[in-house]
Protein backbone atom coordinates (compact mmCIF):
# COMPACT_ATOMS: atom_id res chain seq x y z
CA UNK A 1 0.00 0.00 0.00
CA UNK A 2 1.38 3.37 -0.94
CA UNK A 3 1.72 6.15 1.52
CA UNK A 4 -1.02 8.69 0.92
CA UNK A 5 1.53 11.46 1.25
CA UNK A 6 3.17 10.18 -1.90
CA UNK A 7 -0.06 10.88 -3.76
CA UNK A 8 -0.79 14.28 -2.33
CA UNK A 9 2.13 16.39 -3.25
CA UNK A 10 2.59 19.43 -1.09
CA UNK A 11 3.13 21.32 -4.30
CA UNK A 12 -0.44 20.67 -5.43
CA UNK A 13 -1.94 21.77 -2.12
CA UNK A 14 0.25 24.85 -2.24
CA UNK A 15 -0.92 25.58 -5.80
CA UNK A 16 -4.58 25.25 -4.83
CA UNK A 17 -4.12 27.45 -1.76
CA UNK A 18 -2.35 30.05 -3.88
CA UNK A 19 -5.24 30.02 -6.34
CA UNK A 20 -7.58 30.67 -3.41
CA UNK A 21 -5.87 34.02 -2.79
CA UNK A 22 -7.05 35.84 -5.96
CA UNK A 23 -10.55 34.38 -5.52
CA UNK A 24 -10.68 35.73 -1.96
CA UNK A 25 -9.24 39.05 -3.06
CA UNK A 26 -11.90 39.37 -5.77
CA UNK A 27 -14.65 38.58 -3.25
CA UNK A 28 -13.29 41.15 -0.77
CA UNK A 29 -12.88 43.92 -3.35
CA UNK A 30 -16.29 43.30 -4.96
CA UNK A 31 -18.09 43.21 -1.62
CA UNK A 32 -16.29 46.33 -0.48
CA UNK A 33 -17.23 48.33 -3.55
CA UNK A 34 -20.79 47.01 -3.85
CA UNK A 35 -21.42 47.61 -0.16
CA UNK A 36 -20.28 51.24 -0.35
CA UNK A 37 -22.52 51.97 -3.30
CA UNK A 38 -25.54 50.58 -1.48
CA UNK A 39 -27.86 53.39 -0.42
CA UNK A 40 -28.17 54.04 3.29
CA UNK A 41 -25.46 54.40 5.87
CA UNK A 42 -24.48 53.06 9.27
CA UNK A 43 -25.78 56.15 11.05
CA UNK A 44 -29.30 56.17 9.60
CA UNK A 45 -31.69 55.93 12.49
CA UNK A 46 -35.43 56.19 12.79
CA UNK A 47 -34.80 59.24 14.92
CA UNK A 48 -32.10 61.11 12.99
CA UNK A 49 -28.89 62.05 14.82
CA UNK A 50 -28.19 65.75 15.37
CA UNK A 51 -26.52 67.09 12.21
CA UNK A 52 -23.24 68.06 13.87
CA UNK A 53 -22.83 64.64 15.51
CA UNK A 54 -23.64 62.93 12.22
CA UNK A 55 -21.07 65.13 10.48
CA UNK A 56 -18.38 64.27 13.04
CA UNK A 57 -19.13 60.57 12.82
CA UNK A 58 -19.00 60.63 9.04
CA UNK A 59 -15.69 62.50 9.14
CA UNK A 60 -14.27 60.08 11.69
CA UNK A 61 -15.08 57.10 9.46
CA UNK A 62 -14.16 59.07 6.33
CA UNK A 63 -17.62 58.53 4.87
CA UNK A 64 -17.95 62.20 3.94
CA UNK A 65 -15.66 61.98 0.95
CA UNK A 66 -16.89 61.29 -2.57
CA UNK A 67 -16.99 57.62 -3.54
CA UNK A 68 -15.95 58.01 -7.14
CA UNK A 69 -13.45 60.84 -7.13
CA UNK A 70 -13.85 62.05 -10.69
CA UNK A 71 -13.71 65.77 -11.25
CA UNK A 72 -14.37 67.75 -14.39
CA UNK A 73 -12.32 70.84 -14.96
CA UNK A 74 -14.07 74.15 -14.58
CA UNK A 75 -14.76 75.34 -18.15
CA UNK A 76 -12.95 78.63 -17.75
CA UNK A 77 -9.76 77.12 -16.34
CA UNK A 78 -7.56 77.20 -19.37
CA UNK A 79 -4.32 78.46 -17.90
CA UNK A 80 -1.67 75.91 -17.14
CA UNK A 81 -1.19 77.11 -13.56
CA UNK A 82 -4.90 76.82 -12.94
CA UNK A 83 -4.94 73.28 -14.20
CA UNK A 84 -1.93 72.33 -12.11
CA UNK A 85 -3.44 73.96 -9.03
CA UNK A 86 -6.70 72.07 -9.63
CA UNK A 87 -4.92 68.78 -10.03
CA UNK A 88 -2.86 69.34 -6.92
CA UNK A 89 -5.88 70.34 -4.88
CA UNK A 90 -7.74 67.15 -5.70
CA UNK A 91 -4.69 64.93 -5.97
CA UNK A 92 -5.89 64.21 -9.49
CA UNK A 93 -4.43 63.44 -12.87
CA UNK A 94 -6.04 64.10 -16.22
CA UNK A 95 -7.54 61.59 -18.62
CA UNK A 96 -8.80 63.80 -21.41
CA UNK A 97 -11.25 66.30 -19.96
CA UNK A 98 -11.82 64.19 -16.85
CA UNK A 99 -9.55 64.40 -13.84
CA UNK A 100 -9.35 61.28 -11.73
CA UNK A 101 -8.21 61.44 -8.16
CA UNK A 102 -6.17 58.72 -6.54
CA UNK A 103 -6.75 60.27 -3.15
CA UNK A 104 -10.51 59.59 -3.18
CA UNK A 105 -12.34 57.88 -0.39
CA UNK A 106 -12.99 54.53 -2.05
CA UNK A 107 -9.46 53.65 -3.11
CA UNK A 108 -7.80 54.87 0.05
CA UNK A 109 -10.34 53.05 2.17
CA UNK A 110 -10.06 49.91 0.10
CA UNK A 111 -6.27 49.94 0.19
CA UNK A 112 -6.06 50.71 3.87
CA UNK A 113 -8.64 47.97 4.49
CA UNK A 114 -6.60 45.46 2.51
CA UNK A 115 -3.48 46.57 4.42
CA UNK A 116 -5.31 46.01 7.71
CA UNK A 117 -6.55 42.66 6.47
CA UNK A 118 -2.99 41.48 5.78
CA UNK A 119 -2.22 42.11 9.43
CA UNK A 120 -5.33 40.15 10.40
CA UNK A 121 -7.12 43.23 11.71
CA UNK A 122 -10.76 43.45 10.67
CA UNK A 123 -11.41 46.87 12.17
CA UNK A 124 -13.96 48.11 14.68
CA UNK A 125 -17.71 47.64 14.45
CA UNK A 126 -19.69 50.81 13.74
CA UNK A 127 -22.80 49.57 15.53
CA UNK A 128 -21.27 48.02 18.62
CA UNK A 129 -18.73 50.82 18.97
CA UNK A 130 -15.49 50.01 20.73
CA UNK A 131 -15.89 46.29 19.95
CA UNK A 132 -13.46 44.98 17.39
CA UNK A 133 -14.79 42.84 14.55
CA UNK A 134 -12.12 40.28 15.42
CA UNK A 135 -13.67 39.92 18.87
CA UNK A 136 -17.20 39.56 17.51
CA UNK A 137 -16.06 36.89 15.06
CA UNK A 138 -13.97 35.10 17.69
CA UNK A 139 -17.08 34.90 19.84
CA UNK A 140 -19.66 34.03 17.20
CA UNK A 141 -17.84 31.92 14.61
CA UNK A 142 -17.21 28.97 16.97
CA UNK A 143 -20.97 28.83 17.62
CA UNK A 144 -21.80 28.69 13.89
CA UNK A 145 -18.95 26.24 13.34
CA UNK A 146 -20.16 23.88 16.08
CA UNK A 147 -23.74 24.10 14.79
CA UNK A 148 -22.61 23.43 11.23
CA UNK A 149 -20.26 20.57 12.15
CA UNK A 150 -22.82 18.81 14.34
CA UNK A 151 -25.40 19.05 11.56
CA UNK A 152 -22.80 17.89 9.03
CA UNK A 153 -21.94 14.74 10.98
CA UNK A 154 -25.55 14.00 11.86
CA UNK A 155 -26.53 14.39 8.19
CA UNK A 156 -23.80 12.02 7.00
CA UNK A 157 -24.55 9.49 9.75
CA UNK A 158 -28.29 9.37 9.01
CA UNK A 159 -27.88 9.78 5.25
CA UNK A 160 -25.31 7.02 4.79
CA UNK A 161 -27.14 4.61 7.10
CA UNK A 162 -30.51 5.13 5.42
CA UNK A 163 -29.06 5.21 1.92
CA UNK A 164 -27.10 1.99 2.37
CA UNK A 165 -30.06 0.19 3.92
CA UNK A 166 -32.37 1.37 1.14
CA UNK A 167 -29.93 0.23 -1.53
CA UNK A 168 -29.42 -3.19 0.04
CA UNK A 169 -33.16 -3.79 0.29
CA UNK A 170 -33.89 -2.10 -3.03
CA UNK A 171 -37.61 -1.85 -3.92
CA UNK A 172 -38.68 -3.10 -0.47
CA UNK A 173 -40.97 -1.10 1.82
CA UNK A 174 -37.83 0.12 3.60
CA UNK A 175 -36.46 1.52 0.35
CA UNK A 176 -39.74 3.28 -0.38
CA UNK A 177 -39.90 4.71 3.15
CA UNK A 178 -36.36 6.06 2.85
CA UNK A 179 -37.13 7.65 -0.52
CA UNK A 180 -40.30 9.21 0.90
CA UNK A 181 -38.37 10.53 3.90
CA UNK A 182 -35.79 11.91 1.51
CA UNK A 183 -38.36 13.72 -0.65
CA UNK A 184 -39.99 15.21 2.46
CA UNK A 185 -36.71 16.22 4.07
CA UNK A 186 -35.47 17.77 0.87
CA UNK A 187 -38.61 19.87 0.44
CA UNK A 188 -39.05 21.06 4.02
CA UNK A 189 -37.97 24.68 4.49
CA UNK A 190 -35.83 25.15 7.61
CA UNK A 191 -38.19 27.65 9.16
CA UNK A 192 -41.22 25.41 8.67
CA UNK A 193 -39.45 22.47 10.33
CA UNK A 194 -38.16 24.74 13.10
CA UNK A 195 -41.66 26.05 13.79
CA UNK A 196 -43.06 22.51 13.84
CA UNK A 197 -40.34 21.13 16.14
CA UNK A 198 -40.53 24.09 18.52
CA UNK A 199 -44.32 23.77 18.66
CA UNK A 200 -44.22 20.02 19.36
CA UNK A 201 -41.13 19.57 21.54
CA UNK A 202 -40.86 22.93 23.31
CA UNK A 203 -44.33 24.42 23.57
CA UNK A 204 -46.49 21.27 23.81
CA UNK A 205 -44.27 18.50 25.24
CA UNK A 206 -41.89 20.94 26.97
CA UNK A 207 -38.99 18.53 26.53
CA UNK A 208 -36.43 20.75 24.82
CA UNK A 209 -35.61 24.46 25.05
CA UNK A 210 -37.03 26.48 22.11
CA UNK A 211 -34.12 28.94 21.88
CA UNK A 212 -30.60 29.96 22.90
CA UNK A 213 -27.34 28.00 22.91
CA UNK A 214 -26.47 27.07 26.47
CA UNK A 215 -25.60 23.38 26.32
CA UNK A 216 -26.15 20.06 24.54
CA UNK A 217 -29.88 20.05 25.26
CA UNK A 218 -30.16 23.37 23.43
CA UNK A 219 -28.30 21.96 20.43
CA UNK A 220 -30.83 19.24 19.61
CA UNK A 221 -33.59 21.13 17.77
CA UNK A 222 -31.36 23.50 15.73
CA UNK A 223 -28.98 20.72 14.70
CA UNK A 224 -31.81 18.38 13.68
CA UNK A 225 -33.47 21.20 11.72
CA UNK A 226 -30.27 22.07 9.92
CA UNK A 227 -29.34 18.44 9.22
CA UNK A 228 -32.60 17.19 7.71
CA UNK A 229 -32.23 18.52 4.16
CA UNK A 230 -28.57 17.45 3.71
CA UNK A 231 -29.35 14.06 5.30
CA UNK A 232 -32.07 13.47 2.69
CA UNK A 233 -29.72 14.44 -0.10
CA UNK A 234 -26.92 12.20 1.20
CA UNK A 235 -29.36 9.30 1.61
CA UNK A 236 -30.26 9.52 -2.09
CA UNK A 237 -26.70 9.87 -3.22
CA UNK A 238 -25.57 6.92 -1.08
CA UNK A 239 -28.48 4.80 -2.26
CA UNK A 240 -27.78 5.28 -5.95
CA UNK A 241 -24.03 4.84 -5.46
CA UNK A 242 -24.42 1.60 -3.50
CA UNK A 243 -27.01 0.22 -5.92
CA UNK A 244 -24.64 0.90 -8.78
CA UNK A 245 -21.66 -0.77 -7.12
CA UNK A 246 -23.73 -3.77 -5.96
CA UNK A 247 -24.09 -4.63 -9.66
CA UNK A 248 -20.34 -4.54 -10.25
CA UNK A 249 -18.26 -7.61 -11.00
CA UNK A 250 -16.05 -7.27 -7.94
CA UNK A 251 -19.09 -7.71 -5.69
CA UNK A 252 -19.91 -10.98 -7.45
CA UNK A 253 -16.30 -12.05 -7.06
CA UNK A 254 -16.38 -11.19 -3.36
CA UNK A 255 -19.61 -13.16 -2.91
CA UNK A 256 -18.11 -16.10 -4.79
CA UNK A 257 -15.11 -16.00 -2.48
CA UNK A 258 -17.51 -16.31 0.44
CA UNK A 259 -16.97 -12.85 1.95
CA UNK A 260 -19.79 -12.26 4.39
CA UNK A 261 -22.62 -9.94 3.36
CA UNK A 262 -21.87 -7.24 5.90
CA UNK A 263 -18.30 -6.93 4.69
CA UNK A 264 -19.49 -6.84 1.08
CA UNK A 265 -21.93 -4.07 1.82
CA UNK A 266 -19.72 -1.94 4.02
CA UNK A 267 -16.23 -2.54 2.74
CA UNK A 268 -16.85 -3.01 -0.96
CA UNK A 269 -20.15 -1.48 -2.05
CA UNK A 270 -20.20 1.50 0.29
CA UNK A 271 -16.49 2.28 -0.07
CA UNK A 272 -16.98 2.33 -3.81
CA UNK A 273 -19.86 4.79 -3.45
CA UNK A 274 -17.92 7.28 -1.33
CA UNK A 275 -16.57 9.40 -4.20
CA UNK A 276 -19.65 11.57 -4.86
CA UNK A 277 -20.20 11.92 -1.12
CA UNK A 278 -16.75 13.42 -0.67
CA UNK A 279 -17.32 15.72 -3.63
CA UNK A 280 -20.44 17.24 -2.10
CA UNK A 281 -18.93 17.14 1.40
CA UNK A 282 -16.97 20.37 0.98
CA UNK A 283 -19.72 22.60 -0.44
CA UNK A 284 -22.15 21.02 2.02
CA UNK A 285 -19.99 21.78 5.06
CA UNK A 286 -19.45 25.31 3.75
CA UNK A 287 -23.19 25.69 3.22
CA UNK A 288 -24.02 24.39 6.70
CA UNK A 289 -21.52 26.64 8.47
CA UNK A 290 -22.19 29.79 6.44
CA UNK A 291 -25.88 29.27 5.69
CA UNK A 292 -27.27 28.71 9.16
CA UNK A 293 -28.44 32.31 9.58
CA UNK A 294 -32.11 31.36 9.40
CA UNK A 295 -31.64 28.71 12.12
CA UNK A 296 -29.70 31.18 14.24
CA UNK A 297 -32.45 33.78 13.87
CA UNK A 298 -35.31 31.37 14.61
CA UNK A 299 -33.61 29.71 17.59
CA UNK A 300 -31.95 32.94 18.84
CA UNK A 301 -28.48 31.38 18.63
CA UNK A 302 -25.60 33.87 19.05
CA UNK A 303 -23.81 32.73 15.88
CA UNK A 304 -22.15 34.65 13.08
CA UNK A 305 -25.03 34.34 10.62
CA UNK A 306 -27.38 36.28 12.85
CA UNK A 307 -24.82 39.06 13.24
CA UNK A 308 -24.30 39.06 9.49
CA UNK A 309 -27.98 39.68 8.75
CA UNK A 310 -28.26 42.54 11.22
CA UNK A 311 -24.89 43.98 10.15
CA UNK A 312 -25.98 44.21 6.50
CA UNK A 313 -29.25 45.87 7.48
CA UNK A 314 -27.39 48.34 9.73
CA UNK A 315 -24.66 48.95 7.08
CA UNK A 316 -22.07 48.10 9.71
CA UNK A 317 -19.40 48.08 6.98
CA UNK A 318 -16.47 46.61 8.97
CA UNK A 319 -18.60 43.83 10.45
CA UNK A 320 -20.15 42.88 7.08
CA UNK A 321 -16.72 42.82 5.48
CA UNK A 322 -15.23 40.79 8.32
CA UNK A 323 -17.95 38.15 8.16
CA UNK A 324 -17.71 38.06 4.36
CA UNK A 325 -13.96 37.46 4.56
CA UNK A 326 -14.42 34.63 7.06
CA UNK A 327 -17.27 33.05 5.04
CA UNK A 328 -15.40 33.25 1.73
CA UNK A 329 -12.18 31.85 3.23
CA UNK A 330 -14.13 29.00 4.75
CA UNK A 331 -15.82 28.17 1.43
CA UNK A 332 -12.51 28.31 -0.49
CA UNK A 333 -10.68 26.13 2.07
CA UNK A 334 -13.52 23.60 2.28
CA UNK A 335 -13.45 23.17 -1.51
CA UNK A 336 -9.69 22.69 -1.55
CA UNK A 337 -9.93 20.14 1.26
CA UNK A 338 -12.44 18.18 -0.82
CA UNK A 339 -10.19 18.04 -3.86
CA UNK A 340 -7.31 16.78 -1.74
CA UNK A 341 -9.48 14.21 0.06
CA UNK A 342 -10.87 13.04 -3.26
CA UNK A 343 -7.37 12.25 -4.40
CA UNK A 344 -6.79 10.15 -1.27
CA UNK A 345 -9.99 8.16 -1.71
CA UNK A 346 -9.87 7.66 -5.46
CA UNK A 347 -6.33 6.80 -6.53
CA UNK A 348 -7.31 7.19 -10.19
CA UNK A 349 -7.49 10.95 -9.76
CA UNK A 350 -4.12 12.58 -10.25
CA UNK A 351 -3.65 15.06 -7.43
Amino acid at each position, binding site marked *: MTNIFDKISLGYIGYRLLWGVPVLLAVVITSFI*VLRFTPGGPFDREKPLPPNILKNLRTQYRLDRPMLPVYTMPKDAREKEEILAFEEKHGAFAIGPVHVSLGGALQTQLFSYLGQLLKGDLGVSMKFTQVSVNDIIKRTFPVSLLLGLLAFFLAFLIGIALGTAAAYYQDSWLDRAVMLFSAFGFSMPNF*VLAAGLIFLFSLKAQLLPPALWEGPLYWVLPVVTLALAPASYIARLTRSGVIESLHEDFIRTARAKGVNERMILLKHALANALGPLVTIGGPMLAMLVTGSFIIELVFAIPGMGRYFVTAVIDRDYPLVMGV*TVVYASFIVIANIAVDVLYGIIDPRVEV
Partner: protein
Amino acid sequence: MEHISTGYWGQVADRFKKNRVAMFFMGIILFIIVAAILAPVLAPYSEEAQNADALLQGISSQHWFGTDQLGRDLLSRTLYGARVSMKVAIITSLIAMFFGTALGAISGYVGGRFDNVAMRIVDVLYSFPDLLLIIIISVVIGQGVVGIIVSLSLVSWITVARVVRGEVISIKTRPFVEAAKALGFKPARILFREILPHAIAPIIVTLTFRIPSVILAESTLSFIGLGLQPPASSWGVLASSGWKALTFYPHLILFPAGAIFITILAFNVVGDGLRDAMDVKAK
Protein backbone atom coordinates in the same frame (compact mmCIF):
# COMPACT_ATOMS: atom_id res chain seq x y z
CA MET B 1 -53.58 -3.42 -26.66
CA GLU B 2 -51.27 -0.88 -25.11
CA HIS B 3 -50.50 2.13 -27.17
CA ILE B 4 -46.76 2.64 -27.60
CA SER B 5 -45.59 6.07 -28.65
CA THR B 6 -42.70 6.50 -30.97
CA GLY B 7 -40.05 9.16 -30.85
CA TYR B 8 -38.13 10.41 -27.86
CA TRP B 9 -40.81 12.75 -26.45
CA GLY B 10 -43.57 10.18 -26.92
CA GLN B 11 -41.54 7.68 -24.93
CA VAL B 12 -40.80 10.28 -22.28
CA ALA B 13 -44.52 11.01 -21.92
CA ASP B 14 -45.32 7.28 -21.69
CA ARG B 15 -42.68 6.73 -19.03
CA PHE B 16 -43.82 9.76 -17.04
CA LYS B 17 -47.47 8.69 -17.14
CA LYS B 18 -46.54 5.33 -15.64
CA ASN B 19 -45.00 7.07 -12.61
CA ARG B 20 -48.16 7.39 -10.47
CA VAL B 21 -46.55 9.42 -7.69
CA ALA B 22 -45.15 11.96 -10.14
CA MET B 23 -48.51 12.17 -11.96
CA PHE B 24 -50.27 12.78 -8.63
CA PHE B 25 -47.92 15.66 -7.77
CA MET B 26 -48.22 17.00 -11.32
CA GLY B 27 -51.93 17.25 -10.56
CA ILE B 28 -51.13 19.14 -7.34
CA ILE B 29 -48.99 21.62 -9.27
CA LEU B 30 -51.77 22.20 -11.80
CA PHE B 31 -54.21 22.63 -8.93
CA ILE B 32 -51.96 25.24 -7.26
CA ILE B 33 -51.44 27.15 -10.51
CA VAL B 34 -55.17 27.16 -11.29
CA ALA B 35 -55.91 28.23 -7.70
CA ALA B 36 -53.40 31.06 -8.02
CA ILE B 37 -54.86 32.27 -11.32
CA LEU B 38 -58.45 32.00 -10.13
CA ALA B 39 -57.78 33.38 -6.62
CA PRO B 40 -60.13 36.38 -7.10
CA VAL B 41 -62.94 33.99 -8.10
CA LEU B 42 -62.24 31.23 -5.58
CA ALA B 43 -61.44 33.29 -2.50
CA PRO B 44 -64.51 33.52 -0.26
CA TYR B 45 -63.46 36.95 1.05
CA SER B 46 -61.30 39.74 -0.28
CA GLU B 47 -57.61 39.57 0.60
CA GLU B 48 -57.63 42.66 2.79
CA ALA B 49 -61.19 42.58 4.19
CA GLN B 50 -60.94 42.95 7.96
CA ASN B 51 -63.61 41.74 10.31
CA ALA B 52 -63.38 43.01 13.89
CA ASP B 53 -65.99 40.47 15.01
CA ALA B 54 -63.90 37.50 13.90
CA LEU B 55 -60.32 38.04 15.12
CA LEU B 56 -57.92 35.08 15.37
CA GLN B 57 -60.63 32.49 14.87
CA GLY B 58 -59.80 28.84 14.46
CA ILE B 59 -60.97 26.59 11.65
CA SER B 60 -64.70 26.96 10.98
CA SER B 61 -67.23 26.57 8.19
CA GLN B 62 -67.13 30.32 7.50
CA HIS B 63 -63.33 30.47 7.62
CA TRP B 64 -61.83 27.14 6.53
CA PHE B 65 -58.30 28.20 7.48
CA GLY B 66 -59.35 30.53 10.33
CA THR B 67 -58.68 34.26 10.55
CA ASP B 68 -55.68 36.41 11.54
CA GLN B 69 -55.27 39.16 14.13
CA LEU B 70 -57.12 41.66 11.90
CA GLY B 71 -59.93 39.22 11.18
CA ARG B 72 -58.79 38.59 7.61
CA ASP B 73 -59.77 35.23 6.14
CA LEU B 74 -56.67 33.05 5.97
CA LEU B 75 -57.94 30.84 3.13
CA SER B 76 -58.35 33.92 0.93
CA ARG B 77 -54.94 35.24 1.95
CA THR B 78 -53.29 31.87 1.23
CA LEU B 79 -54.93 31.80 -2.22
CA TYR B 80 -53.74 35.30 -3.02
CA GLY B 81 -50.35 34.41 -1.54
CA ALA B 82 -50.08 31.64 -4.12
CA ARG B 83 -50.22 34.31 -6.84
CA VAL B 84 -47.24 36.19 -5.40
CA SER B 85 -45.17 33.11 -4.54
CA MET B 86 -45.76 31.38 -7.88
CA LYS B 87 -45.20 34.56 -9.88
CA VAL B 88 -41.83 35.17 -8.22
CA ALA B 89 -40.80 31.52 -8.57
CA ILE B 90 -41.74 31.10 -12.23
CA ILE B 91 -40.44 34.44 -13.51
CA THR B 92 -37.18 34.11 -11.58
CA SER B 93 -36.60 30.58 -12.84
CA LEU B 94 -37.25 31.61 -16.45
CA ILE B 95 -34.83 34.55 -16.20
CA ALA B 96 -32.15 32.38 -14.57
CA MET B 97 -32.82 29.76 -17.23
CA PHE B 98 -32.42 32.21 -20.08
CA PHE B 99 -29.16 33.82 -18.93
CA GLY B 100 -27.73 30.62 -17.45
CA THR B 101 -28.36 28.72 -20.68
CA ALA B 102 -26.96 31.46 -22.89
CA LEU B 103 -23.80 32.01 -20.87
CA GLY B 104 -23.21 28.34 -20.05
CA ALA B 105 -23.70 27.31 -23.69
CA ILE B 106 -21.40 29.98 -25.10
CA SER B 107 -18.75 29.33 -22.45
CA GLY B 108 -18.84 25.58 -23.06
CA TYR B 109 -18.86 25.91 -26.84
CA VAL B 110 -16.21 28.61 -27.23
CA GLY B 111 -13.97 27.05 -24.59
CA GLY B 112 -10.37 28.17 -24.23
CA ARG B 113 -9.55 31.42 -22.54
CA PHE B 114 -13.13 32.73 -22.56
CA ASP B 115 -14.34 29.62 -20.76
CA ASN B 116 -11.46 29.87 -18.29
CA VAL B 117 -12.26 33.46 -17.38
CA ALA B 118 -15.99 32.71 -17.14
CA MET B 119 -15.36 29.78 -14.82
CA ARG B 120 -13.10 31.86 -12.58
CA ILE B 121 -15.90 34.44 -12.31
CA VAL B 122 -18.23 31.62 -11.33
CA ASP B 123 -15.66 30.57 -8.69
CA VAL B 124 -15.77 34.05 -7.22
CA LEU B 125 -19.57 34.19 -7.29
CA TYR B 126 -19.71 30.80 -5.57
CA SER B 127 -17.49 32.07 -2.76
CA PHE B 128 -19.67 35.15 -2.35
CA PRO B 129 -22.26 34.88 0.41
CA ASP B 130 -25.65 34.80 -1.40
CA LEU B 131 -27.34 36.56 1.45
CA LEU B 132 -25.12 39.65 1.11
CA LEU B 133 -25.91 39.91 -2.58
CA ILE B 134 -29.64 39.40 -2.09
CA ILE B 135 -29.95 41.91 0.73
CA ILE B 136 -27.92 44.54 -1.11
CA ILE B 137 -29.93 44.20 -4.31
CA SER B 138 -33.22 44.27 -2.46
CA VAL B 139 -32.04 47.48 -0.76
CA VAL B 140 -31.05 49.08 -4.07
CA ILE B 141 -34.12 48.05 -6.08
CA GLY B 142 -36.53 47.91 -3.19
CA GLN B 143 -38.13 45.04 -1.32
CA GLY B 144 -40.92 44.64 -3.82
CA VAL B 145 -41.66 41.78 -6.18
CA VAL B 146 -39.26 43.20 -8.80
CA GLY B 147 -36.39 43.51 -6.32
CA ILE B 148 -36.75 39.95 -5.10
CA ILE B 149 -37.01 38.61 -8.65
CA VAL B 150 -33.84 40.44 -9.73
CA SER B 151 -31.80 39.39 -6.72
CA LEU B 152 -32.89 35.74 -6.80
CA SER B 153 -32.26 35.60 -10.57
CA LEU B 154 -28.74 36.89 -10.01
CA VAL B 155 -27.89 34.05 -7.64
CA SER B 156 -29.84 31.38 -9.57
CA TRP B 157 -28.35 31.56 -13.04
CA ILE B 158 -24.98 30.15 -11.97
CA THR B 159 -26.32 26.64 -11.31
CA VAL B 160 -28.03 26.60 -14.70
CA ALA B 161 -24.91 27.87 -16.45
CA ARG B 162 -22.83 25.07 -14.91
CA VAL B 163 -25.27 22.35 -16.01
CA VAL B 164 -25.61 23.69 -19.55
CA ARG B 165 -21.86 24.21 -19.93
CA GLY B 166 -21.20 20.60 -18.97
CA GLU B 167 -23.82 19.34 -21.42
CA VAL B 168 -22.52 21.47 -24.28
CA ILE B 169 -18.94 20.34 -23.68
CA SER B 170 -19.98 16.68 -23.84
CA ILE B 171 -22.20 17.18 -26.91
CA LYS B 172 -19.83 19.29 -28.97
CA THR B 173 -17.45 16.41 -29.70
CA ARG B 174 -20.19 14.19 -31.14
CA PRO B 175 -20.11 13.32 -34.85
CA PHE B 176 -23.18 15.33 -35.92
CA VAL B 177 -21.51 18.49 -34.64
CA GLU B 178 -18.42 17.64 -36.65
CA ALA B 179 -20.69 17.17 -39.65
CA ALA B 180 -22.33 20.55 -39.14
CA LYS B 181 -18.89 22.13 -38.94
CA ALA B 182 -17.81 20.37 -42.10
CA LEU B 183 -20.92 21.73 -43.82
CA GLY B 184 -19.67 25.20 -42.97
CA PHE B 185 -22.47 26.27 -40.64
CA LYS B 186 -21.83 29.35 -38.54
CA PRO B 187 -20.90 28.74 -34.87
CA ALA B 188 -24.08 30.42 -33.59
CA ARG B 189 -26.21 28.14 -35.75
CA ILE B 190 -24.30 25.05 -34.64
CA LEU B 191 -24.65 26.02 -30.99
CA PHE B 192 -28.30 27.02 -30.94
CA ARG B 193 -29.77 24.80 -33.65
CA GLU B 194 -27.63 21.65 -33.40
CA ILE B 195 -26.18 21.39 -29.89
CA LEU B 196 -28.77 23.00 -27.58
CA PRO B 197 -31.75 20.92 -28.79
CA HIS B 198 -29.80 17.87 -27.60
CA ALA B 199 -29.40 19.47 -24.18
CA ILE B 200 -33.09 20.31 -23.81
CA ALA B 201 -33.87 17.43 -21.44
CA PRO B 202 -31.35 18.39 -18.74
CA ILE B 203 -32.40 22.04 -19.17
CA ILE B 204 -36.05 21.17 -18.51
CA VAL B 205 -35.10 19.09 -15.48
CA THR B 206 -32.93 21.91 -14.12
CA LEU B 207 -35.80 24.37 -14.62
CA THR B 208 -38.16 22.11 -12.69
CA PHE B 209 -35.70 21.99 -9.78
CA ARG B 210 -35.06 25.77 -9.94
CA ILE B 211 -38.70 26.61 -9.16
CA PRO B 212 -38.83 24.93 -5.72
CA SER B 213 -35.47 26.36 -4.73
CA VAL B 214 -36.66 29.86 -5.64
CA ILE B 215 -39.86 29.29 -3.63
CA LEU B 216 -37.66 28.19 -0.72
CA ALA B 217 -35.35 31.21 -1.03
CA GLU B 218 -38.18 33.73 -1.38
CA SER B 219 -40.19 32.34 1.52
CA THR B 220 -37.11 32.13 3.75
CA LEU B 221 -36.14 35.73 3.02
CA SER B 222 -39.70 36.94 3.51
CA PHE B 223 -39.95 34.90 6.70
CA ILE B 224 -37.03 36.75 8.31
CA GLY B 225 -38.30 40.08 6.98
CA LEU B 226 -35.69 40.61 4.26
CA GLY B 227 -37.81 39.55 1.31
CA LEU B 228 -41.25 40.83 0.42
CA GLN B 229 -42.92 43.15 2.88
CA PRO B 230 -46.59 43.38 3.82
CA PRO B 231 -48.99 44.22 2.23
CA ALA B 232 -47.41 42.07 -0.53
CA SER B 233 -48.41 38.74 0.94
CA SER B 234 -46.49 35.77 -0.35
CA TRP B 235 -46.69 32.55 1.66
CA GLY B 236 -43.40 33.49 3.33
CA VAL B 237 -44.84 36.80 4.53
CA LEU B 238 -47.94 35.02 5.88
CA ALA B 239 -45.79 32.41 7.65
CA SER B 240 -43.69 35.18 9.12
CA SER B 241 -46.65 36.84 10.79
CA GLY B 242 -47.93 33.41 11.90
CA TRP B 243 -44.58 32.65 13.54
CA LYS B 244 -45.06 35.50 16.00
CA ALA B 245 -48.23 33.85 17.29
CA LEU B 246 -46.96 30.26 17.26
CA THR B 247 -47.74 29.55 20.93
CA PHE B 248 -51.44 30.35 20.91
CA TYR B 249 -52.53 30.47 17.27
CA PRO B 250 -50.54 27.77 15.45
CA HIS B 251 -53.08 27.70 12.59
CA LEU B 252 -51.71 31.07 11.40
CA ILE B 253 -48.41 29.48 10.38
CA LEU B 254 -49.72 25.98 9.63
CA PHE B 255 -51.55 26.80 6.39
CA PRO B 256 -49.05 29.07 4.61
CA ALA B 257 -46.13 26.87 5.74
CA GLY B 258 -48.05 23.79 4.58
CA ALA B 259 -48.68 25.43 1.20
CA ILE B 260 -44.95 26.19 0.83
CA PHE B 261 -43.97 22.64 1.78
CA ILE B 262 -46.48 20.92 -0.50
CA THR B 263 -45.58 23.12 -3.47
CA ILE B 264 -41.85 22.53 -3.06
CA LEU B 265 -42.45 18.80 -2.57
CA ALA B 266 -44.62 18.64 -5.69
CA PHE B 267 -42.02 20.33 -7.90
CA ASN B 268 -39.23 18.15 -6.50
CA VAL B 269 -41.17 14.92 -7.09
CA VAL B 270 -42.19 15.99 -10.60
CA GLY B 271 -38.57 16.99 -11.29
CA ASP B 272 -37.44 13.53 -10.21
CA GLY B 273 -40.09 11.95 -12.40
CA LEU B 274 -39.06 14.02 -15.42
CA ARG B 275 -35.42 13.19 -14.83
CA ASP B 276 -36.19 9.47 -14.77
CA ALA B 277 -38.52 9.71 -17.77
CA MET B 278 -36.02 11.69 -19.82
CA ASP B 279 -33.16 9.51 -18.62
CA VAL B 280 -31.05 12.48 -17.57
CA LYS B 281 -28.08 11.41 -15.50
CA ALA B 282 -26.81 14.33 -13.46
CA LYS B 283 -28.98 16.72 -11.52
